[in-house]
Structures are given as C-alpha cells and as structure tokens.
C-alpha cells in the first residue's frame, strides 16, 4: 500500500491528462483521416491524402508561421536577455517590483492587448499620426498589415515568457563564481562569455521553447495586426475549422504543425547540447 501511495496521489493528474489531452488528440487524429462534409457527416476512410492536400494548399502559410515565429523568438532573445540580466544582477532590492511591472500587461486580456497595439501602429494613430503631423515621417508610411507589425506583436506579447526563465537561470548564478572568474584574470567580457552565459543557457533554452511554440501557432497577431499577405497557419486552422467546417483539413494541419514543432525542438535541443542543457538544468 505504501509503495502505491505516490501513484495513487498522481492518479488525478494522470486522469486529467488522459481525459483532456490524450482523448482529444486521439479524436483529432481520427478526424484528420476522415472524409465527408459537415452536412452528411464524416466517415473514417484512412485518407492520408488529407495531409498531402492540406500541406499542398497551405505550405506557404506554414513556412511563414515558422519564419515569423523564429524572427519573433530571436527578437525576444535580443531584447529579453539584457532585461533579465539587468533585473537579476542590478535589480537589487527592487527585483520583485521590476518583475511585477513585467507581468503587469498580463492583467489585460491577450486579444485586447493586441488590439491596442493595432491602435498604436495605425497609419494615423497616436504614434505615426503624430510623427507624420510633425513631418518626421512620410505620409504614406505604414506598419500595420506588414510583417513588421505581426512579428512586433508576437515579440511584444510573448516577451515575458522569454525573460522569466532567463531571469531565473541568471538569478541562480552564484556571484562568487563570477568573482572567481575575475580573480582568474578574466575580463568582464570573458567572464560573461565563459561563465555567466553558459550557466544561463538552460534559461535561454526554456525561454525559446516557451515563446517559439506559441508564437508560431498564434492566430491573433496575424489577424489583428497583419494584412492578407501575413496569414499564419493558426489563422488557416481557425478558418478551416470554424468557417469552412472542414474538420479533417484543420486536424491534419494541426498535427502537421505539431510534428514540425516537435522535430524542430528535437533538432534544437541536439544542437544546443541536450546533455549540457539538462545537466545544467538539473544542477
């Protein structure tokens, strides 16, 4: 009985996972192989051609999603690392205040935040309208409905998910270890490159995962900030499912996206050195 206790305690979470993750996934996998239409119903025909059709029609959007997700992730890393570094090492007693400020936008709904960004970036909005009024920008200057707007929105919306894990990793770096590097003749740059950066890599790894995956799959930013040329795979899945009621194609696209992301993560983990990352993370 005693040996079973941990398993029994874990049972509710396993049930939860089974009911709300495994069952829907299995259902979706099944739907992705069916044929039919919304009126007459769908029947299982094991038509793997659903995948080929979906990919054939929407490969542009899939590649674009990965491209936008990647661009946003790089932007978040470039902006987020210095912020995390600054809070961890220079934040002093106000660290929690800065972290709170970082999370403050989350008290507003995700969609609403994105729409406000739309207002901000509008051609005649607060920012560009004013600048144009002062003659600092040409009258035909616009950002909304471009790649920049969508990638910018993704970057803005997911930035805290990049900063927080990096901050946690940097916070755990023993300042004496950094002092030891200085003591052993390392310049500030060398101490960062050889000691601080490697020790923060698990945070970077986690941050990239936590931002790249949702950013790539996100439909909201492309819909609110993008134009017709910026459609991402999330939008397609949404339209196929909710508007066209083409459940098999939507499911096939979802699975394709999941597979592509999983393979990408696997390659990424390999490249960054799973061993190093996991080892350092397990420390």
């Amino acid at each position, binding site marked *: 009985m005693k040996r079973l206790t941990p398993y029994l305690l874990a049972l509710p979470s396993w049930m939860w996972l089974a009911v709300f993750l495994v069952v829907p996934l299995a259902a979706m996998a099944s739907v992705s192989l069916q044929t039919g239409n919304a009126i007459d119903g769908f029947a299982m025909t094991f038509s793997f051609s659903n995948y080929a059709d979906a990919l054939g029609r929407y490969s542009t959007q899939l590649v674009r999603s990965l491209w936008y997700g990647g661009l946003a992730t790089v932007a978040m890393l470039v902006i987020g690392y210095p912020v995390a570094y600054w809070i961890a090492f220079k934040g002093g007693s106000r660290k929690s205040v800065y972290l709170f400020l970082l999370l403050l936008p989350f008290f507003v709904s995700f969609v609403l935040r994105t729409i406000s960004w739309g207002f901000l970036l509008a051609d005649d909005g607060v920012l560009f309208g004013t600048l144009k009024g002062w003659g600092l920008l040409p009258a035909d200057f616009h950002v909304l409905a471009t790649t920049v707007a969508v990638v910018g929105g993704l970057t803005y919306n997911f930035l805290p998910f990049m900063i927080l894990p990096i901050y946690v990793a940097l916070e755990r770096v*023993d300042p004496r270890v950094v002092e030891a590097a200085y*003591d052993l*003749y390392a310049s500030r740059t060398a101490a960062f490159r*050889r000691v601080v950066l490697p*020790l923060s890599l698990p945070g970077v790894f986690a941050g990239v995962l936590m931002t790249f995956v949702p950013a790539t799959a996100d439909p909201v930013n492309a819909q609110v900030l993008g134009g017709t040329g910026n459609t991402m795979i999330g939008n397609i899945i949404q339209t196929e499912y909710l508007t066209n009621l083409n459940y098999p194609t939507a499911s096939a696209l979802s699975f394709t996206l999941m597979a592509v992301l999983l393979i990408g993560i696997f390659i990424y983990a390999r490249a960054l050195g799973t061993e190093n990352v996991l080892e350092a993370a397990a420390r």
Partner: protein
Amino acid sequence: MAELNRAELNAIELDGVVKEYLSHGEVVQAVKGVTLDIAEGEFFSLLGPSGCGKTTTMRMIAGFEEPSRGVVRLHGADVTNVPPNKRDINMVFQSYALFPHMNVWDNVAFGLKQRRTPQEEIRRRVGEMLEIVDLAGREKRRPREMSGGQQQRVALARALVNRPRALLLDEPLGALDLKLRQAMQIELKRIQREVGITFVYVTHDQSEALTMSDRIAVMNDGLVEQLGGPREIYEKPASAFVAGFIGTSNLLTGVAAGGVLELGGGRVLVPGRDGEVTVTVRPEKITISLDKPDGEVSVVPGTVGEVVYLGTYNSYAVRLGDGTEVTVFQQNAHDATTTAERGDPVWLSWPAQHSYAIGSRSTP
C-alpha cells in the same frame, strides 16, 4: 638604478586602509584603518569573529572592494585601484566557487587560458598541479560529483596553478567536517611549503590560525587588536579581547602597588606595574594544590566549584575570595597528585612570567 630585489619587498602591504559602506543612509565603517606588512612566503592569518572586517580586508587585497581610504601594495606596487583580473594574486573562496559547468581540468586550466598560456604549457602545469593536490585521474569529473574535500583541493589547484605572488584563502575549511579539516590543515601547510607562496588565511577558528600561521593579525570591530606569532598571541594577549578570543583565559583585575596585586587574600606578581591593572593567566599555567605553596610565585586562595573530567585533563572552576571565577586545567598525568573536589579550599599558583598585564581596550 639598482634592480629591485623581490625577496626584500613585502608581498602585501596595507597602509591605513579604511572601508566605508552606506547602509540605510548612514556611513558604516567595516574596516577602520588597517596597516599591515605581510612578508614574502609567509603564512599569515587574519583572525577574528564574524563582522570584524577580516573578510572585507581580504577582499580589498584581492581587488573585489576598493578601499575608501588608504593604499594597498603588492610587492611595492600600488594596486589600490587595480581590478582583480589585473592582480597577480589568486583567491580560494569560502564555498570554493568552482565553475559548475566545467570539469576539474577546465576549472584548473581557466586562469592559464585567460592568460593565453601556450597549450603545451597548460597541459603540463595543470597535470603537475593535479598531482600535487592528489586529484590526478579525476580530470573529467564535475565539481558536484566530488566530495567537499576534493572540491576544496580543486579550488586550491585552480588558484595555485597560476603561480600567483600570493594566495588568499577565505575560511577555506569551514564547510568540512572536523577530521577532514584537520587533515586539510596539514595538507595546506605542506602545499604552502612546497610552492613557497605567501598565504593569507582568513578564519574565525583560533585553533586553525594557531596551528598553521607564521603570524596572526587578530581583528575586532574593524581594527587589528594584535599582530604577532601564534605563541606570542597566545601567551601575551595584548587586550582583553584577544585573551578572551584565543582559547580560555582568566582575567584578574585590581589595583597593584610595587609590582604586587593583592587579591582575595593572595598576591599576584605584576613586575613593574602600579595602579589599576588587568592580568591574564591561561588555565593550563595554573597549579592547583591543597597546601599553600612557597617561593616567588603568584598565589591566591579559592574554593573549588565545578570539576569536569575531560579525558586528558580536568577542568576546575575555582571561586576566589572576591568572587572572581578562575578556570584551571590540570593534566591527568601519571604523577598527578592533587585530587581537589567540589567545595575544597585550594591554593592556585603560577610563576610571574605566566601572568601578563594587558591594556584593556575592549572586551569580547
């Protein structure tokens, strides 16, 4: 110009060094003016309770803290404002501060790599150093896969491999258990003799400092209370603080006349002293006897209180006529004659040279 002879210069000189911090808008002095000369090849200890300024003093030598006032010199050169990575000095940190993501070899090679030492030389010197600290064959281990004692030796090797002009050690044995600590004390002393480098050792453990040091600076409240060899500091404490901090000590206070301090029906010899005086005498210097001893010695009567059997010796708490409590250690030697018991009236005696009059500046 004559060439400078390094051996004639002090390894480390502190000249009126002060460190001030701003804490809640108030200026706090962690170090209130320390002047020290540490000779080349010396094993020098900074000893004192926590908060006495010993660690801050060492961090100023290492370059992690800049003195608010005063000068730090290494081999005659003023390094007061030189950053730590430009100082020819290395440090062994209290918690070792090994690089957790590097194996033993890379940890030890770090300093040499930073100095762009040729590959071949790095290989040779790291190998030799790992031999010295008895870690050959463990190059690929990560720090967290090693015991505290092994990590300690990696930290030592990582510093010594650079052949610094001086090595700073910040309570390096604090995290080890007693057995290992004693073994490492001997080990450290051996390594220091072997490499011939100046060691500056920071500790709050008086027995550690007495065992290993050539000289000790006893620090209290940001100042050096006494500077001297272990024997001198133990036998002739310069202040009540030092007497109390180093080992057990008895303090006798009174007014002396003509080199004699009358105390509770007895006399304490304080040659050349007159007026208010405080005298220290170590518990093991006192002889306890049932009959009044003769001769030119200090003699005071008292009553035995607690007697504690401690294996190699007994500890007696003896109350004097004026209420002062005196601790006496007596060896359990084969010829031990006295068997004083609780409540017995006894005589305490010791030769004049074992009581030492101190200028009482502060109490522990």
